[in-house]
């Protein structure tokens, strides 16, 4: 493995709450999801200050994650189970790198690492950084990450409407709720051997991730939690939703909100639920979800 490509740039001057990197729940997010890169599109609004980028669709997520960390540390100043957000960037835009570092400091974001990668090695970068969850607005990257066993989710949300007060994570449960021995399962489809393996690989990392989120969630009460887990089934009957709920519970996470759509229009509901991130393995059910405003 060529480690040259895996260069980390540490952002100086940022206060981090991390006590123990081995316990951190690392979330990788593409830097162009967190900030609006001026070179890519016409600026939609004047820049916040010179050399500073405007917030992108992933910005509310980062702020909400930060609040969870703050609340965790409030409860226990020695807390080691915290989120650790790292940004992914490609090397070939040096100008934007300094803008990103400036912007991180300007907005007071708790991000200490910017990792470089390209299309080819990005999944190995994820693994070497022990990334537990990869977030993107790009469905190709999400699928790529999932195929190599890293849980990956869609960044959802419209600029300006997502809440900063509570981190809202939504799991699409249709595939989580299937069971071999019931009548609520669709007739067997041909699943390739590779596909089966990748599903199993991601499933065990998903279990780990869910267990960690569940552990964090339990540190707060049922009400006024800075972290909220939601479950939604899109086209399945009610019992599939309940089985998905029980499965998540068995993995260590008690979801707060649950929605069984059974074919009711998804986008209306999602627009109301307003999750920051949407986990759907294989993106089977949410391919058309509008991720950006």
């Amino acid at each position, binding site marked *: 493995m060529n480690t040259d490509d895996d260069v980390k740039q540490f952002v100086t001057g940022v206060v981090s709450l991390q006590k123990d990197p081995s316990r951190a729940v690392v979330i990788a997010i593409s830097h162009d999801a967190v900030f609006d890169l001026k070179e890519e599109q016409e600026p939609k609004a004047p820049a916040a200050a010179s050399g500073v980028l405007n917030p992108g669709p992933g910005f509310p997520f980062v702020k909400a994650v930060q609040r969870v960390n703050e609340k965790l540390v409030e409860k226990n100043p020695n807390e080691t189970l915290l989120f650790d957000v790292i940004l992914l960037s490609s090397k070939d835009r040096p100008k934007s790198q300094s803008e990103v570092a400036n912007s991180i400091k300007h907005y007071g974001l708790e991000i200490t690492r910017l990792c470089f990668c390209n299309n080819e090695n990005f999944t190995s970068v994820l693994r070497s950084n022990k990334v537990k969850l990869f977030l993107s607005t790009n469905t190709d990257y999400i699928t790529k990450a999932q195929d190599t066993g890293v849980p990956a989710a869609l960044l959802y949300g419209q600029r300006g409407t997502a809440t900063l007060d509570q981190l809202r994570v939504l799991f699409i449960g249709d595939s989580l709720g299937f069971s071999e021995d019931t009548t609520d399962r669709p*007739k067997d489809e041909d699943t390739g051997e590779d596909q089966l393996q990748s599903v199993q690989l991601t499933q065990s990392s998903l279990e780990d991730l869910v267990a960690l989120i569940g552990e964090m969630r339990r540190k707060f009460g049922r009400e006024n939690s800075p972290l909220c887990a939601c479950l939604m089934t*899109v086209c399945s009957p009610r019992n599939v939703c309940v089985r998905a709920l029980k499965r998540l519970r068995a993995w260590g996470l008690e979801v707060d909100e649950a929605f069984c759509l059974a074919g009711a229009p998804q986008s209306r*509901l999602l627009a109301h639920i307003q999750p920051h991130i949407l986990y759907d393995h294989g993106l089977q059910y949410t391919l058309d979800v509008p991720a950006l405003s």
Partner: protein
Amino acid sequence: MSDMKEAESAGELKGEEEKDWAEAKAFFDSLKSKKPRPPKPRYAVTIAVSSRTLFDMTSERKIFKQQGLEKYVAHQQEHEDEPLKPGAAFPFVKAVMSVNARLRALYPDSEELFDIVLMTNNHAQVGVRLINSINHYDLTIERFCMTGGKSPIGYLKAYMTNLYLSKDSKKVQEAIGEGIAAAIMFTPDMEVELSDTQLRVAFDGDAVLFSDESEIIVKQHGLDTFFEHEKRFENKPLAQGPLKCFLEALGKLQRKFYAKNERLNCPIRTYLVTARSAASSGARVLKTLRSWGLEIDEALFLAGAPKGPLLQKIRPHIFFDDQMFHIEGAMELGTISAHVPYGIGQKYNRGKLIEENPQKQ
């Protein structure tokens, strides 16, 4: 309100909806168990029921009030596999299900059906017991929203709800304010045997099907002025009230039976039970309904007599009224009643104006 479903079909949104719908249809059609699939929300008559109206949760509610949320959720989880007892809306839901069975038999491919959605404020963990209970009674409720404490109002709209039943007056008022027909359900004092082949829905007139404009005249100027006014404006339709759209939705389904020559055997029957009198103020009401193109199967003018005994004969699965006085009277004699907190009637109790700020000693 019936226009709401039509108005919200911008081209792109409709395309997405079709896709969501097609996926679910394909899924349900492929299931080994031949479960009836829920209808397309755009065409369905959607009834949202809260957990406390569907099931009897009085003792659980007590735990919540006395011991707090955490103990309440823990209790529900411990008893997850014990089905809850039926609540006030249960007979209504069962009757709706039997109408659906008749509709499916006559129109196998139609999406114009009732759709029942469980709309609860409860946390998802409590939801397991609710779904287990739904399974126990084999109710056809496939859609649900467990909002974990957040207001259900936005979700009501997202599901294109035609009627919302809850025990929580604040939520019901909010729903009415947003143009959704809604009512607060009450459990009657005695149990009465209801038809299991015909859904019977009874409505009060003023401030339920119609606006409270005439109600205001009675309260502020007395009965004589009211009679004069109604006679004078007999041919001017009353403005619509919060439950008008629901009556309209019922009418749409009734006509499907008529089209198949099932008028005499129609499994939906509607009643108007009004304190108005046929002789003096009744005409305006009938003319208003006619102008709206709506039919009501039986119009009963009580001329001020108590509604309880008459309702006892009708045995509706639900009776909507805006005045608690009538709700109480109905419940005493076993009628399942639903209070519509709308209009001037809310400011009065048994004919007397409720003081806003009662004097303290």
